[in-house]
Each structure stands twice: as structure tokens, then as C-alpha cells.
């Protein structure tokens, strides 16, 4: 039978092979240049949308973390205010430690589950849940119960990668300039910061601003030097649209990991706010800590990042 020349049946001659190499030599560098450009390093801060809640702060009390969280967000104005249809949402809990929910080292999984549900009901296209952990990430995701809870409610839960970051670019001089930050934390429509209130050796308490260290990769230990300033710049860079503080149970001593249940007390409270300073100041009052003991809170007040006066603020208290 006559030999039919075709792409698959032709013998590859030396010339063909060289042609192919030549084509690759031209296209690959061009492609990679385009790709590199798309993956460019420096990124500006997230745009501040200035969304306001119906109240400055909602304090919801209730024994059930899921229901309490739902009530708190609804009283603030509902998730629809923060999440538009098809949006990409980041729900950033504290998953830093290889600790079980009752040990209070991480955000309660039911608080995360409630927020994922609210986002999806509000029409979010995608809900990303991650943390750059301190212990091994797989163990943290599993032991904290957050992977299971968030995935069951339809979130994408994944491990952050060192290479998948952008470098922070500030409009002002900052010690955090150029710090690598997980790409998804910046490239999202809505960022919901979901810290757990607990004791911390260096910052006295860790609440919302300290929780944002979990979007940073790199050598994070050096953030601890001059931590107040760095956390405020970081909070200003990410500027989460919504802050939900888990104070259902609080680790009062030996934080931020804990491990001893005798150090944990129930507060059965969930806070929702758009103001990190107000949320942190109120959280301090839950555990009788002077807000001025938190270096980041002192710095944030001085910088006018939010309102520090509980007396003048519109605070709604409710029971779920």
C-alpha cells in the first residue's frame, strides 16, 4: 500500500527534529517571559471597600458555636453585605497548632463551618480556607477538625505553598516591605479574618491582627521583633472586610498552643465586626486584660486603624 505521509506516520528526519528544537527555543522563553510577568512579585495592598455593618460590633452569646456565629453575622447585616455573587472568599481561621478543638489553640471548627455556609448561601463562587501553620500543616488541619468541618460545608481547604506568594508593596515605608504573602490572601474579593482569642507570651493576647501572620510565609520569627508595628502594617495591607472572633472557649494561660484543659475557660461568645481595633479591645475585656498590654493594639490606636473606645461605639449584645 502506498505510504500515506501524515503527522503520526512520517519518519522524523534530522531536519524535522532541529526544526522542533528551534521552535521550542523561540516559544518557550517567550512563553516563560509572559508567564513570569503574570506571576510578578510586587503587589499593592488590598483595596479598602469601606463596607460598614449595622453596628460597630456584635457580641453574640450562646452555647452552640455554629448558631452563635450565624446570629452574630446576621445581626451585623448579613453575609450578603460582604460577599457578592460569584465572589472568591478567603476564610482565614487560626489553624496554627496540632491541637484539638477543646484545647482552644485553634479557631473552633463549627465557627469556620458556619462562616463557610453563610458565604455559600450568599452566593460565593469559591471559599478558600488555609493557614500557614506552626506545627506540621497536615496534623494541624486534621487535629483542629477544621479541614473536615470546612470541607463538609463546601470550602476548598488546602495547604499553602512557599512559592505561591506575592511580595507586599506598601505606599509608605514599612518593616513588612517585600514580605512574602500567600497569593490567595491578596487575590480575593472578600477576606474574613476568623481568629481565636487566646493567651500569648509576647503580645499578651493573640486575636485578629496576630492571626494575620498566618498569611505570611518566609522566616516569620523575625516578625516578632518590633511586632506591634509589623502586625498593624500587615492588617492595613490585608484589611479584612469582616472579623469574626471566636471566644467560645478561651485559652487563658500557656498560649498560644496550650494543651492543658485546666487553662481553658468557656466564654460562649462570638464577636463580629469590621473594625479590628474595636474587636480586639472588646475581646480584651472578655478576659480582663488591659488593651494597652497588646503592643499591636497600642500601635493601631496611635495609627487610627479603628476606634478604641468601647463606651462610644455602637455595640449590639445578643443571645443566640
Amino acid at each position, binding site marked *: 500500500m502506498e505510504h500515506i505521509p501524515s503527522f503520526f506516520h512520517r519518519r522524523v528526519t534530522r531536519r524535522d527534529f532541529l526544526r522542533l528544537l528551534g521552535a521550542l527555543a523561540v516559544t518557550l522563553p517567550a*512563553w*516563560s517571559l*509572559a*508567564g*513570569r*510577568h*503574570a*506571576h510578578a512579585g510586587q503587589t499593592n495592598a488590598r483595596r479598602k471597600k469601606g463596607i460598614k455593618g449595622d453596628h460597630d460590633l456584635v457580641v453574640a452569646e450562646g452555647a452552640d458555636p455554629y448558631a452563635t456565629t450565624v446570629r452574630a453575622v446576621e445581626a451585623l447585616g448579613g453575609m450578603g453585605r460582604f460577599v457578592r455573587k460569584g465572589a472568591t472568599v478567603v476564610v482565614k481561621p487560626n489553624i496554627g497548632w*496540632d491541637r484539638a478543638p477543646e484545647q482552644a489553640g485553634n479557631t473552633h471548627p463549627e465557627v469556620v463551618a458556619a462562616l463557610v455556609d453563610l458565604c455559600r448561601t450568599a452566593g460565593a463562587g469559591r471559599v478558600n480556607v488555609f493557614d500557614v501553620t*506552626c*506545627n*506540621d*500543616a*497536615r*496534623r494541624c488541619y*486534621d*487535629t483542629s477538625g477544621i479541614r473536615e468541618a470546612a470541607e463538609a460545608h463546601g470550602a*476548598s481547604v*488546602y*495547604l499553602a*505553598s512557599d*512559592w*505561591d506568594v506575592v511580595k507586599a508593596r506598601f505606599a509608605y515605608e514599612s518593616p513588612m516591605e517585600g514580605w512574602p504573602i500567600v497569593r490567595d490572601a491578596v487575590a480575593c474579593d472578600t477576606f474574613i479574618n476568623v481568629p481565636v482569642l487566646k493567651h*500569648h*507570651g*509576647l503580645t499578651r493576647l493573640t486575636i485578629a491582627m496576630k492571626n494575620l501572620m498566618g498569611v505570611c510565609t518566609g*522566616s516569620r*520569627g*523575625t516578625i*516578632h*521583633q*518590633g*511586632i506591634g508595628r509589623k502586625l498593624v502594617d500587615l492588617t492595613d495591607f490585608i484589611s479584612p472586610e469582616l472579623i469574626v472572633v471566636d471566644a467560645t472557649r478561651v485559652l487563658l494561660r*500557656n498560649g*498560644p*498552643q*496550650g*494543651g*492543658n484543659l485546666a*487553662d481553658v475557660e468557656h466564654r460562649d461568645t462570638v464577636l463580629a465586626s469590621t473594625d479590628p481595633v474595636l474587636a480586639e479591645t472588646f475581646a480584651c475585656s472578655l478576659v480582663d486584660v488591659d488593651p494597652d498590654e497588646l*503592643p499591636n493594639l497600642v500601635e493601631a490606636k496611635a495609627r487610627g486603624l479603628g476606634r478604641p473606645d468601647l463606651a462610644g461605639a455602637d455595640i449590639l449584645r445578643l443571645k443566640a
Partner: protein
Amino acid sequence: MNRLVRLRRFSQILCLVLFVYILWSTTYPLSGLLPPETFFKINPLVMVMTALSGRVGLVGLSAALVLVFLTLVFGRFFCGWVCPLGTMLDVTARLVRRDRWRRSLRTGRMRFIKFGVLFFVFVAALAGIQAAWVLDPMVIMARFVSLNLIPAATRTLDGAFVFAMTTLGLREVLIDAYRWLRESFLGIQVPFFAHAVVILLFFALILSSVALAPRFWCRCVCPLGALYALAAKAAWMRRLVDICKHCTLCIPRCRMGAIREDMTYDKGECILCMDCVYDCPQHGTRFGIIARLPERRTESGPGISRRNFLFLLALPLATLGRRVFAGTPARAGVIRPPGALDEEVFLDRCVRCGNCMKVCITNGLQPLMFEEGLEGLWTPRLVPEIGYCEYQCTLCGQVCPTGAIPRLGVEEKKRTRLGLAVVDRSLCISWAHGQECLVCEEHCPVAEKAIKVTERRTPSGAVVGAPVVDPELCVGCGICQNKCPARPDRAIRVQPLSA
């Protein structure tokens, strides 16, 4: 149709794939279908010699003895049909020695070397020294797969994905697949192992022996092969030649050199590869189970001569004095895995298979070279700057085939001491530079905190918290050293227990 050869190849590839699969799944959360120590537990050399040298009963003994029993029936089927190192040698021989007719080194009496090795290992075990690990094929293969092959494969895959997503800009297309792969197949981190190239060279050296003869290793060196060869001498399954015109075709083609010029064969050397069944132009060769043959000659093969026997006996005796002459007791100048037996016992019990290093969740367990002397070669040590010991993790004890690292419960593990952290105040950011830090205290996993904070007034008048280790509480996990931001040297370091 060479049905039996195909069946044998299928079995070899299946066992090799299984071997790699088991090691690949030797990682958190240990959800593999087979226990990570499977291939060691069925290994009579490792199990018997370790039990003998440590004077302990090991669970794996029973499984290993089943293999010996099967060998008493079928001969060295393990070498030809199961052993993953044997398969690698066959594959290498096929690649290097295209021509099966190519002349091999006539190994002849060199095959007795392996009995010498086995004898040496045996006498050493009687004397309480476990030397099986040095040349055990399963250990050599496992170390290669765990510390060379899998790291190289994951690095390549991960690198290809990251290249496509960053340089080629395909992140949006690939990121979800990548994330899924990373947590299922790729593994979370690309592992790094110190001196892995030495392990690779050792493995390559063994593979390169095919240049002398295919399966030169199995003919002449392998102590596990020697053990099976002794058992196989009594095997019921034997090679039967019904028609033979003395064409001698089969002799040079036998990969084990087991067929003699007079067309008899050495049952202890035959690995039942089944090649001779199909090489025979007369189709007169087969294998069958026959308890007794009408012997043509009363010849049980050239046994070990008295002179050789005495020589072999002298060999291990010469090294028995190792500990005596070396004088210094084992040093333990390194951090061993959690719960590791006393250094002397640990060195004898550890078979250097690399399972603990493969499974270590932080990649902190690394192979030693000669830091602990020759006898510490390839034993595991914790290098906190690479990875710390995860507080609630017990994986290394769960995958150790010989119990050199015991299986600890989580609560027991949390109380198990690996070393003691010591703050170097001349380097510490808080002590030496008066800056706030306390990263070590933050990460200390002990519920009551083994690192306490002491208030310290700096020359400028400010008060900073500085770390102090409570030696009663510190378990030496090394997370403080791992996370300490001081550079180039960490300001808090874990000292080994006896140092």
C-alpha cells in the same frame, strides 16, 4: 510461549511496584494498604539475626520463618520472583548486557563468598552484634527507594508543576490539581536527606556488578541469598532434564551460573527464573516437585572444605574484638529518634532501612555518616534545624521493623526525652540584643511551657521577656531550635541526652 518466564516477570514487577508503593505510603497518616515494615518482617536474615543479636523475640520472626519453609519446598523462588533488588539487577542487566550470550565472569567458587558473609553475620549475631544490615538486599533497596528514588521523583514532579505554574503562567489551570496531588500522591514537602548521594553511589555500585555477570550480587555476595541457598538445597522442587543432547546452550545463559558442565545443577543457586525451560532446543527441561531423584551420582555438590570452614570461622573472630579494641563505648553525640533504645542496643537493633527517615513528618530524621563512628553509619539522627520532632507524632516508632525505635503511645511519646534545649545568651535576640522575640517560648509544645519567660531590663530601660529553659519540663523536641530566628547560628540548641 514462555508462559512461566512471563509469569515470573509479572511477579517481579508486581513485587517491585508493591515495594515502592509501601515506601511511598510510608508517610503521614500511614493510610497505606500494607504495613510499612512488610518486606522486612518477611525477611529471615534481618529478623533472625536481629533477634539473635538482641536476644529478643520479634513478631516478624514467624512471617520470616514461613518464607524459609516455602524455600524448603520451592527453592530460592524469593530471589528470582520476589526480591526487588534482584529485579533491579535483572532490569539493569537487560539494559547493559543486550546480548544474553555475552560472556560472564565465571563465578565458580566465588559463590562461597556469600556463605562467608552469612557466616560472619551469624557469628556476629551470636556475639551480640547485628551486622545483617550491611549487605541485606531489602535494606539496601529500601534505603535507595526512600532516600533517593522517592525524593528525586517528588522533586521532579513538584518542580515540573511549579515551573508550569510560575514560569509558564498556568497557575489557574493547574493549581487545584497540584493541591490535590500534593496531599495525596506527591506528599506535602519534597524531602531532603543529607549525604543521600553516598547511598546512591552504594546502590549504583551494587547494580554495576552486572558488568561482571548478571546477578553477580546474588551469586556471590548476598547474605539473604546465601540463607535461602542453604534452605533451597533441601527443596522438593527441582529442575528435571528429560531429553538432553549436550548442546550446553543452557549453561552460559543461566543468570546464576547454576548449571554445571555435566548438566547437573546446583539447587542452592537456582532462583527458578525458568529461562532454561525455554532456552532448551529439545524442550526437554522442566521443573517439578519430586521428593527423590534416581541419583546418577552421589554428589551433593562441592561442600565447604575444612580449610575454608576454618578460614570462615577466623574471619568474624578477627572482628569480634571490634568493641574491645575500639575501646570507646558508643558516644550518642547525636539526638536519636524518640524513645530510641540505649545507644549500644540501638546500634545493634537498627537495620538502617530508612523507614523512620522516610516517614518523619518534618524531615528532621537524617542519615548519619561517620559522626558516630563506622558503626553509626546510616542510623537516624534528629537535625532540628532541618526538622524538629513533632510533639504528638509517633510515626517513626510505628514503622521501625525491629523495634529499635519503640512504638509509643501519644501520651508516652509526649513525655519522652530526646535531649535538652540550651539557650546561648550571647546569640539570643532577647538576651544579647534586648529585643522582643520569644519565638521559642511560643512554639514550645509542652502544656506548662518548658521555656519560661524572665523579665529583663535593657540598657535603654525597656523591659523585654527573655527565654529560660526549665530542664525538668524540656523534652528536647527541637522546635525551639527549628524556629529560632537568630542567624547564622541558632540561639537555642538541643543537646543530646548524654552529651
